[in-house]
Each structure stands twice: as C-alpha cells, then as structure tokens.
C-alpha cells in the first residue's frame, strides 16, 4: 500500500514535532511516523537515577535501554553494543510519542561561540559550517517556544540573550557550595525549559521528578505542548506503532518514499520532502539499513561521540538542607573556555540539590547507604546524618568527534529482522588528558576547607547525549548534511538531531538540536 503527502517526518520527538507544527501551520499535508505505541503518562513518578545506575554497573559492555516500567510506554527497547569496555556508552534514548523529549530534564544550554570554532581557536576538531551569530536567532526562538527560564546580569555569561522567564533562584545548597568551591568554580544559575512562574500559573513546584514526570506540566514536552495544537488538524496524520524500516531512493538523487511496518504489513509513504527526526542513533540506523548513494553511505556513522561524565558524591562540613527545590538549579560554567583549551577539552560542573546516588530524603539515603555502601551500625547512622550535607556534582566534559568512533550495524537483529545499531566509542588522547585533569580537579575539591569527603561514584559516556555521525559541513566528500541540515546527496531529505554536530561542547545538546531544527525549517530552498 502507498500513501502520498507533502511532508513525511520520521519521529515524534522534539525535532519531529517542531517540524510538524511548522508545516501544518502552513497548510501542508503532513504525516508523522512514530514507532512508539502511546504517550508517556506514568501514575507514580519515582527517581529513576538508581535504576539506570544499576544497568550501568551491571552491563558495562552491553547496554540495554531499560527503565523500570518503560516497556509499558516505550516501544522496542534498543540494544547498543559497546565495542570498547572502558568508558562505555550507556544508551538511554527513549522511543515513544514525544521521544526522549517526553523525558528530558529540561536543561537548556546554548553552545558557546567558541564551541563552533574549535579548530580555528584551539587547533582540534572541526569548525562548524556556520558560527554562533548565525544560529543565535534560532536559539532565541527555541527559548520562546520552550518557555525557557534563565538568568540575567550574570558576570562573564557567555551569551547575550534575554530569557522570557527568570532563572530559578539558587538554592541554599548552591550558595554554600559556591562559597566553598570558589574561585576555581563559579556557581551560577542554570537555564531550564521549565516555566518559572507561580505554581498556580502552571509553574514548577520543585517535585524533583522532572525526568519521570512533571506533576505541574511546567517542563516543556513536545507531546504535551506542541502536538495537541496540530493533532486534530485535517492535514496532519500521525501513524503510531509504525517503525520506519528504510528510506527508498531513486536515481535522480532524491528520496522517493519510506518503508514502514503497519501491523504486519509493509507500507510505502511517499512525500515531496522527508525529515528524519528519529534521534541521532536511530536516524543513522535507518540510513545504514537503506540503499543510499555509496558516497553518502560511507560517511554515515563516523565521528560519533557523547559527553563524558564523572559523578561525584561530595560531603561538606556543614548542613546543606538537601532535597529542596528543583533537582538542580546551578552549575559552574566558568571552566567551559578555560585557558588550557588548546590541550584539554571544555568541561563544566553541574551542582545537584541532593546526592542522587543515594536519594534526596533521609529514609532513601539510609537505605541506599546501607545497600550500596554496605554500611551498618554507627557508620550507617552517621553517614545518613551526613547525607544532609551531601550533594552530587557531575562533571560533563567535551569528547572529541574523531572518525575512529562510529555507529555501524550490529549482527544482532530486532524483532523486525533489522540489525540494531552498534556504537564503537573510545576516548582519544586529548579526552584522556581531560579526564586526568578532572581527576586533579577532584583533588582540588577534596582539599577545600569546607569539604569533608569526595567520592567518585562513576564515570562513562552520557547515554542521553549521542552526537555526531552525520556531520554538517560545506564539503559533500566529508559531511553528510549542509548548513541547513539538508542531505548533500539526497536533495529532498533533511536529517535532524544531534548527528549534525561538529563538536560536542560540554553542555546539554537539546537546545542546540532544537535550534538546528528551526534553522533547517528556515531553508529558503524549501517550497511545496
């Protein structure tokens, strides 16, 4: 069976929904294809960090995208094989209506202007095919659509933007930590796509379950805040439970259709324009499972990366009164463009308003200190008391996008007979130097007078931030998409998402992914 549309979008997450809303508003006939079966609306939000941590510690090589109860909401949990044991990549993207946008934390950082020119400024990586000034207007629009809350009048803030909603005020914990970690770490409020208005006006209530569920609906979700405005439009068709198996090309250098599975039948969806919006890795999996021009296919997957993370459990010498307010309200970003960036990658330190490795309430801390640290007796009770002086700090660091790291196809197949994606990731020499440098920063923090104890709880490659694999560039021989996210080789195909990045930076990528989507939609070559 074959159906025909103006616009075909694969994926219903942030990029797909922004795209759908854009074209439906213009009167185009749009189909959105989503492999997931339903919307994510759990009854009982719980802190999910422990479950993911359990998966990470038990499965260093083979990462299953698991989440307690996730199979009720998310379709077909995907396996990624990590080829390298050390610093494994723990895949953690979600498949369902809204995609990972249904469960993101809301952290909304722009990349710094320097992140777009690492080759020119620091001698490593690849410069993006456009600078910060060119993408800045799109960041502004994202902040409007996502009701982003952020600070103003911060000294040395890398950007000259103005947020509609004010930043969440720094917690008491932030202020104590700021005092003790200065001057090396300057703790400033972080921006979030979470409405910072009075709770009676639909604002955040500090429930601490942002990722699992926002009980106030204050965190931007594409399925709850964008999709409802288009789902009843007569020009919009949403096909759920319909995985896209491949794109189909014709000799003229265009995409003719996509093949999807509906029930147990294969169906072809034809359109004038195609947007792959299925997340960084799934986009590459679809492309690698498709008949593409060879000069395009050989480039897919190269330069894959994710952010490095190091999780610290830090106990201070005074009470912090943890577990209040939002899960996190501040970070130290003064280290993003540190003086050694020609040798050591960019990094930042997120400050969490509790130690999430043990829990943000005394009973949770007691049981977790008992179970995870196997403490008992006096030590258990003392450490539980200390937990009110204990918080998690997370170093997020940039990882080089070198071509030795790849997304390819696994020998393991999914239930539809298609190979899963396989991620080969390893740290470069520069990445290792950065990791060693962070080890020195840990020692520095340990020796601060106000700090009682620092434990490194774990490290790895962030499973929520897969980036690279279909780089944006000007040269079709070394890049997959052009500065407008359009494929160099297939003129009616746009590939959205983090795969277009040329550098990871050290900041959560969703905001930039959304900005790149709006940039793509502004491509003047698009006409219907």
């Amino acid at each position, binding site marked *: 069976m074959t159906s025909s549309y103006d616009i075909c979008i694969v994926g219903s997450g942030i990029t797909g929904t922004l795209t759908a809303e854009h074209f439906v508003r213009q009167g185009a006939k749009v189909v959105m294809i989503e492999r997931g079966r339903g919307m994510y609306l759990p009854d009982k*939000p719980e802190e999910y960090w422990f479950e993911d941590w359990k998966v990470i510690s038990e499965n260093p090589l083979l990462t299953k995208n698991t989440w307690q109860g996730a199979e009720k909401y998310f379709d077909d949990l995907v396996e990624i094989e990590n080829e390298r044991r050390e610093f494994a990549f723990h895949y953690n993207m979600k498949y369902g209506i809204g995609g990972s946008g249904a469960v993101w934390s809301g952290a909304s950082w722009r990349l710094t202007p320097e992140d777009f020119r690492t080759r020119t400024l620091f001698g490593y990586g690849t410069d993006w095919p456009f600078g910060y000034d060119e993408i800045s207007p799109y960041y502004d629009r994202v902040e409007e659509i996502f009701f982003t809350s952020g600070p103003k009048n911060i000294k040395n803030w890398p950007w000259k933007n103005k947020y509609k909603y004010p930043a969440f005020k*720094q917690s008491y914990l932030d202020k104590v930590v700021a005092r003790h970690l200065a001057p090396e770490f300057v703790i400033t409020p972080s921006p979030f796509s979470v409405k910072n208005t009075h709770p009676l006006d639909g604002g955040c209530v500090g429930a601490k379950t942002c990722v699992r569920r926002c009980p106030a609906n204050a965190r931007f979700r594409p399925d709850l805040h964008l999709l409802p405005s288009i789902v009843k439009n007569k020009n919009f068709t949403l096909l759920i439970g319909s995985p896209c198996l491949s794109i189909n090309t014709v000799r003229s250098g265009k995409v003719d259709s996509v093949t999807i599975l509906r029930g147990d039948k294969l169906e072809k969806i034809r359109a004038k324009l195609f947007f792959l919006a299925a997340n960084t890795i799934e986009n590459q999996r679809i492309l690698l499972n498709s008949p593409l021009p060879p000069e395009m296919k050989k480039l897919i997957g190269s330069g894959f990366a994710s952010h490095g993370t190091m999780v610290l459990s830090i106990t201070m010498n005074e009470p912090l009164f943890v577990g209040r307010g939002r899960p996190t309200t501040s970070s130290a970003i003064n280290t993003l463009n540190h003086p050694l960036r020609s040798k050591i990658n960019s990094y930042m330190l997120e400050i969490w308003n509790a130690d999430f490795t043990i829990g943000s309430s005394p009973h949770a801390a007691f049981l977790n200190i*008992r179970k995870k640290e196997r403490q*008992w007796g006096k030590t258990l009770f003392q450490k539980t008391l200390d937990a009110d002086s204990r918080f998690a700090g997370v170093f997020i660091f940039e990882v080089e996008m070198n071509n030795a790291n790849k997304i390819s196809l696994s020998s393991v197949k999914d239930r539809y007979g298609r190979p899963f994606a396989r991620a080969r990731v390893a740290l470069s020499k520069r990445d290792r130097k950065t990791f060693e440098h962070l080890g020195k920063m840990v020692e520095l923090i340990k020796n601060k007078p106000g700090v009682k104890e620092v434990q490194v709880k774990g490290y790895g490659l962030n499973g929520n931030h897969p980036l690279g694999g279909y780089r944006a560039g000007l040269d079709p021989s070394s890049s997959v998409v052009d500065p407008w996210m359009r494929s160099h080789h297939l003129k009616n195909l746009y590939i959205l998402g983090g795969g277009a990045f040329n550098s990871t930076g050290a900041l959560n990528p969703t905001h930039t992914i959304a900005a790149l989507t709006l940039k793509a939609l502004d491509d003047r070559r698009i006409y219907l």
Partner: protein
Amino acid sequence: MNLVLDRAISRRWFLKVLTLLLLEGCGPAPLLEDALQEKEFSYFLTTLIPVDEKHLNKFKSALPRLLRKIDNARKRDISNTYTRFKKRYVKNYAKKPFSLSNGESIIAEMLSNKSLSDETNSALDTLYTLFLASPAGDVVSWGRPFSKPGVKCLYWENYDEPVNLVKGG
C-alpha cells in the same frame, strides 16, 4: 553434612569442622519471637542500631508486629544471624559488661566471613528496613521535615534559605 571418615583425613581438619558445627550449629534456629526478650538480643540491636534508648525501645516494641509482615526466609536470616551473634557474645564476652565495640567486632567478623556474609547482610537489610518502618525511624529524619519526590516541594517558597531544625533534631 556427610563426614567421610578416612585415615587420610587429618586430625586438624576434623577438629576445624567440629568447631564450626559447635559454633554455628546444625539444628534449626530458635524462634525469633522468643529471642526478642533475651538480653543478648538487646545487645544485638544496640550494636546494629546505636540510637538513644527511647528510640530503641520504640523499635523493640514495634518489632513483634513488624516481624509478622515479613516472610519466613527473611525471619530465618535474622534468626540465624542473631543466633551466631549470641553464641559468639556468650563465648567471648559473657563475663564482661556490654560494650558497643565488642558487639561491633562480632558483626564485623561475620560480615568478613565469606560463608556468612550473604546471610548476615540480608538480615541487616531486613532489620534496617523494619527499623525505618517503625515509629523509631524518625530518628534518621535529619531533624527536619523533608520533601517527597513527585509532590510539591515543602520548601518551595524558601528553598534558598537555611532550615529551622525541629526541637531535638
């Protein structure tokens, strides 16, 4: 346990096994509920839960009710662990007044013993879970109320300020 008496078995090995049997016992552990009133059980609890007497008594009062809610496997773990604690305590420290460090050394020894650590840890996990479920569990509450995940933060209006600790906290 089958003992194969063979001339090749050394006398030393035989004595080791005999000591283990005498210490650990190979019969069924006594009923846990009966043990609650023993003074050694108080020592056992004090070692594991070194809180003030008021809270410890609260826990001891609630324990019979709480024990009815757990399965027999967990009761057995606690019972076996207590029985071992009691045997060691009686053997080594019966003639001395109770001291926390003596109780701690017994627990530490059981936890470091590979053949006992799993059951001991399981018993401790259960006891601590029961403790938190009892009225005595409020002793770990950081001396203040705390916000629960998934509901509006108690301190939403003033999370940027220090907290006034409750009296006695």
